[in-house]
């Protein structure tokens, strides 16, 4: 059963085996594993429960409803928008469905440099395979690769670069193009329509509109949480929810998970909770083409290039993706008549972005005065260099695909009319707010590792400082994972849950 604020009247207490905080890529699979093993499970989700019937596909309405802070989350200086879902299914409900295995190089780095054990690609493969079956991952079919994504592939092909269809978690895709507004047809097989209903069918209970305030622990062992169930529109507290549990799992994402731990005063002897934020800066460029593309229609993201994925070749992936004018117009340059002229040609524009493998230099701190996360992030020199390179290479790609003009993401507009102008990018500052940036993948703020002095959780997901307190979301990554993370998060979460179930006397006695 899924309960919402409208269903709650007064205070409630639950006594369960496992409480899962968050219902996204981490929380969904974890709850499913536990519920199907016969454990009593409660899932607490701060966002609302929305289904395909609620997804209007209208950009502003859906971003406002489904994203943290209506899409306005980010550092106080506004230098980057950090987009996360705040709804049942979490970011998996609003993402562009890109599915990558965790890179073996990255997993090896975690093992060699951070003391992570038992999380090799081979160790994770059983969970990866089951995840991919459940969420229906497959290589994008020809009709799922729209005109803009085909231009990405064409440009790469012309330059002799790697390019391939993306693997996506969709079934019978209608190529509506509204992937990031919630799939109105349940074709996106997100956690919302897979792991959550399967967990509920196995006996889990999910409370939406439930904001966890504190995790409780006694004598070094977690034993439950307190939450407030709030009306989605008015914010009125409908009831206080106390969940007593033998195991507590935090899966609230890399911004909220550290805030919950900080608020609770737990698990931070290392000082690492909230630190080491990486965000995969998304660097968007666009190409203007002679032919009409209507690039907002079709699978938002359908192709990619790993030509520059290795750190010594660039350190970023290039991915196609164009949205409607309300979201897509924000990344196109200029204002006034200059901007208006660009928008008149919107149906001839394709955009794509580079996902940059960045350094862990940011920070998340819970602010008790505002009750919100204070986020600090500024690209270091390496990340700035990679980002600049990605703009140049994407420009080459668009021109090779036949673009008449290329739009770069610099706030002070830099529009290129031919490939010879690309080096003008070298003269531009990459400092804060000098270019439009967006992040879809905050991570690494509650890092995993072998040394309790430099990490928060161990290789099984349990906090070094607090027994029976686990973390299972993208905050556990010791470094940026370099690829779109949803499959990695789901698989690691499932793997952690299986580890707990394999040692039940330890955790449930």
């Amino acid at each position, binding site marked *: *059963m*899924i*309960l*919402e604020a409208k*269903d*709650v*009247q*007064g*205070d*409630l*207490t*639950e*006594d*369960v085996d496992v409480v899962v905080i968050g219902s996204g890529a981490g929380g969904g699979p974890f709850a499913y594993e536990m519920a199907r093993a*016969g454990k009593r499970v409660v899932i607490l989700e701060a966002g609302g*429960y929305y*289904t*395909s*019937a609620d997804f*209007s*596909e*209208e950009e*502003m309405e859906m971003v*406002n409803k489904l994203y943290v*802070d*209506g899409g*306005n989350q980010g*550092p*106080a200086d*506004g230098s980057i928008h950090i987009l996360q879902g705040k709804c049942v299914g979490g970011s998996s409900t609003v993402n562009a469905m890109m599915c990558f295995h965790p890179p073996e190089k990255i997993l090896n780095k975690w093992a060699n440099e951070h003391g992570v054990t038992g999380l090799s690609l081979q160790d994770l493969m059983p969970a990866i395979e089951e995840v991919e079956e459940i969420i229906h991952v497959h290589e994008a079919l020809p009709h799922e690769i729209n005109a803009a994504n085909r231009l990405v592939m064409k440009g790469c092909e012309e330059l002799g670069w790697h390019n391939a269809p993306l693997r996506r978690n969709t*079934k*019978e895709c*209608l190529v*509506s*193009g*509204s992937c990031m507004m919630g799939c*109105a*047809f349940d*074709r996106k*097989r997100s956690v*919302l*329509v*897979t792991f959550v*209903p399967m967990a509920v069918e*196995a*006996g889990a*209970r999910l409370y939406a509109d439930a904001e966890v305030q504190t995790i409780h622990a006694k004598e070094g062992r977690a034993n439950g949480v307190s939450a407030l169930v709030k009306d989605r529109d008015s914010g009125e507290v409908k009831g206080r929810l106390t969940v007593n549990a033998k195991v507590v799992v935090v899966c609230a994402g890399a911004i909220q998970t550290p805030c919950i731990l900080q608020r609770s005063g737990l698990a931070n002897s290392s000082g690492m909770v909230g630190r080491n934020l990486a965000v995969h800066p998304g660097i968007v460029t666009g190409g203007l083409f002679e032919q*009409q593309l209507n690039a907002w229609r079709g699978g938002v993201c359908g192709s990619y290039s790993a030509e520059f994925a290795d750190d010594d070749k660039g350190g970023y992936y290039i991915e196609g993706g164009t949205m*409607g*004018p309300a979201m897509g117009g*924000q990344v196109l340059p200029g*204002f*006034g*008549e200059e901007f*208006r002229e660009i928008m*008149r040609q919107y149906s001839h524009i394709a955009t794509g972005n580079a996902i940059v493998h960045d350094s862990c230099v940011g920070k998340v701190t819970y602010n008790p005065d*505002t009750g*919100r996360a204070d986020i*600090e992030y500024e690209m270091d020199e390496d990340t700035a260099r990679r980002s600049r390179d990605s703009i140049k290479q994407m420009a080459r790609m668009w021109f090779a695909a036949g673009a008449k003009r290329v739009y770069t993401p610099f706030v002070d507009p830099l529009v290129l009319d031919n490939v010879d102008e690309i080096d003008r990018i070298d003269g531009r500052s990459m400092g804060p707010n*000098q270019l439009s940036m967006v992040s879809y993948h905050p991570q690494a703020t509650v890092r995993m590792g072998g040394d309790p002095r430099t990490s928060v959780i161990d290789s099984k997901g349990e906090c070094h400082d607090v027994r029976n307190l686990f973390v299972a979301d993208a905050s556990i990554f010791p470094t940026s994972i370099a690829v779109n993370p949803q499959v990695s998060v789901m698989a690691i979460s499932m793997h952690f849950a299986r580890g707990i179930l394999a040692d039940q006397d330890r955790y449930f006695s």
Partner: protein
Amino acid sequence: MGSLNDTSTEAMVEDWLGRRSFLKRAMFTASAIASATMLPGCGNYPDAGAALRVLSAKEFAILQAVAETIIAPTGPGEPSVAQVRAIEHLDQNVLPKMPANVLSDFKSLLLTVEHAPILFEGALSPFTELSDADKASYLDGFMRSQYTLRKTMFQALKVVSVTAYFAMPASWSSVGYNGPFKWQLGDASPRPLGISTLKGGDPSMANPGALRIPSGGEPVSAAVETHDS
């Protein structure tokens, strides 16, 4: 228009306001400027023509003027920001859901934009009373500034303006956008697939709404609830 749009002024403002907390301090700056000057028109803002939920009439007027300057609908078939009622829609449907501190920062930003022409342009008029050309020149100074503060402010204004305007169906034909998929198909929209179940076989079985308490069901209120494995 005479201009104080020089690097010394910008450096001073940038240093004083600071990048990370600029909006908090910008509120003081805007208030200080507004109260310390005898700018004409400071208290005279037109009625928004609609009942406002979040914005004051002054804030509405500022944001509308900013959005018109940024969007610049000038060609045939290009409705104005006012004609598509973008700012009314924003005020009624989006701003009420913004976190309080984000909304407060945004209102401070609007005040700063309105009253800062005297700082950056040497202009005695607030933004809303500048000519269209001077409005564009003023915002151009923000966009091209070498200082992070003004760029930050410009980006925030552009994002809000673009989102608000192009969220309105009346704006879509001007950019060749044919609207969301459901919008196009209407009653011919395909049925949703449904949610996965554990009962094996084809996951296109269940209605997502089946997971909710039935409509009209009793609210949940209990001292202790346990549920069976």
